[in-house]
């Protein structure tokens, strides 16, 4: 049984560009949450998706947007990239009806130059 998978593993972008990160939840999980983890810090909540809708959002600007597909997979989009967006982006999935039990993927390392 595959756990949470994310793609790509690493990504390098230039300031001002746009990026899309992808996440496939663990089998049987219907809720996906996204976190940003700066180097040496704990993950910061970006938003959570359930039934293809954003149900909760952290303190991130509108440049950060997401989407959830009918198969529960999800995308994180970041527009107008800033140097400060360089971080590890983590996706976490949760079992049906238990969105506080979050299981994390390996993350996507985004570097903005």
């Amino acid at each position, binding site marked *: 049984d595959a756990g949470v998978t994310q793609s790509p593993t690493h990504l390098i972008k230039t300031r001002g560009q746009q990026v899309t990160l992808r996440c496939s939840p663990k089998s049987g999980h219907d809720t996906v949450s996204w*976190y940003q983890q700066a180097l040496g810090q704990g*993950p910061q909540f970006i938003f959570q998706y359930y039934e293809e809708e954003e149900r909760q959002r952290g303190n991130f600007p509108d440049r950060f947007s997401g989407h959830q597909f009918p198969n529960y997979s999800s995308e994180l989009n970041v527009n107008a990239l800033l140097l400060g967006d360089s971080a590890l982006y983590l996706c976490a999935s949760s079992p049906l009806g238990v969105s506080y039990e979050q299981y*994390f993927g*390996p993350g996507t390392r985004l570097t903005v130059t």
Partner: protein
Amino acid sequence: GESVGLHLPTLSVQEGDNSIINCAYSNSASDYFIWYKQESGKGPQFIIDIRSNMDKRQGQRVTVLLNKTVKHLSLQIAATQPGDSAVYFCAENILQAAGNKLTFGGGTRVLVKP
């Protein structure tokens, strides 16, 4: 506001000894707490959780203690092994029907000495 913090950024422990990682939280409304382990280059791995109506919960070689009076959480690892070397995060959550975000602290690095 909501915040979770850790007292010690780095903990060095001898292999075979017990480790204790501490965490302070500030949101008295939090009712669910989780410990995660993160190894280099990997995502956080769930270790153990505890609800606010409990004081103690045990897993395999790990014990989590919750003291709501002083808003303190700790993770005890028995007979620490080299594979326990990692960064440990505590996280808190307020259980609700519409969305559950985890609030993480800054992490404690555990280094196991042979």
